[in-house]
């Protein structure tokens, strides 16, 4: 399930040094729980994103381990400190080994 996966991230373009900003992330993914059945009654195998991390200039902000109980198109909202200008790096790890990445740079206002 590596088709049509598109990460979307909302980060302010500028922030005051040391201030806190709110980050919202969403990635399109089916998040097949492994409990649904198709028309023939066969179980659809599990296929989810099992981990999400956010780093700023190499320093960790949040690291979430995800279970099948996370909704389709996983959405996360959290707050991060911006000590200096730099780049947020968002990484999603799929069950099938795929890694999806997104980056956003923040300037100091």
């Amino acid at each position, binding site marked *: 399930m590596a088709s049509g996966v598109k990460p979307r991230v909302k980060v302010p373009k500028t922030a005051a040094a040391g201030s*806190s900003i709110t980050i919202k992330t969403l990635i399109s993914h089916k998040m097949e729980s492994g*409990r*649904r059945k198709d028309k023939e009654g066969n179980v659809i195998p599990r296929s989810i994103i099992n981990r999400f991390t956010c780093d700023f200039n190499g320093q*960790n902000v949040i690291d*979430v381990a995800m279970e099948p109980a996370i909704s389709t198109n996983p959405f996360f*909202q*959290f*707050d*991060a*400190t911006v000590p200096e200008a730099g780049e947020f790096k968002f990484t999603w790890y799929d069950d099938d080994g795929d890694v999806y990445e997104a980056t956003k740079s923040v300037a100091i206002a």
Partner: protein
Amino acid sequence: MELTRRNALVVGAGAFAATFLPFQAYAAADEAIAAFTGGADVGTDGITLISPEIAENGNTVPVSVDAPGAVSILLLAAGNPEPGVALANFGPLATKQSVGMRIRLAGTQDVIAIAKMADGSFVKTSNAIKVTIGGCGG
């Protein structure tokens, strides 16, 4: 009915079963809590779980957990086939130890959030969410 030894045993067994039945569904969640806390005492102050009282669609229920000073937050849905929802670990740049996400709920149930604080203590809170349409499929 005379209270013979046999009758006393029957009544006792019935009472025993009645006490334990309602908790059976939550046994898996309790195990997950024990695995996370290692059996340590769990307090109740300093953690907030924001969730809707009634969720019309169990496929996407928005919840957010706020636990100032936490290093990690474990979210459990006690009534789901698998209770685990997510484990969030906060790094040095997380300003507020809070996270919002959308989760699946199989039916009306309690959602439990447990936070591990920086000093190694644990706090827990839980909210009941009524779910109109469950979100686990088949």
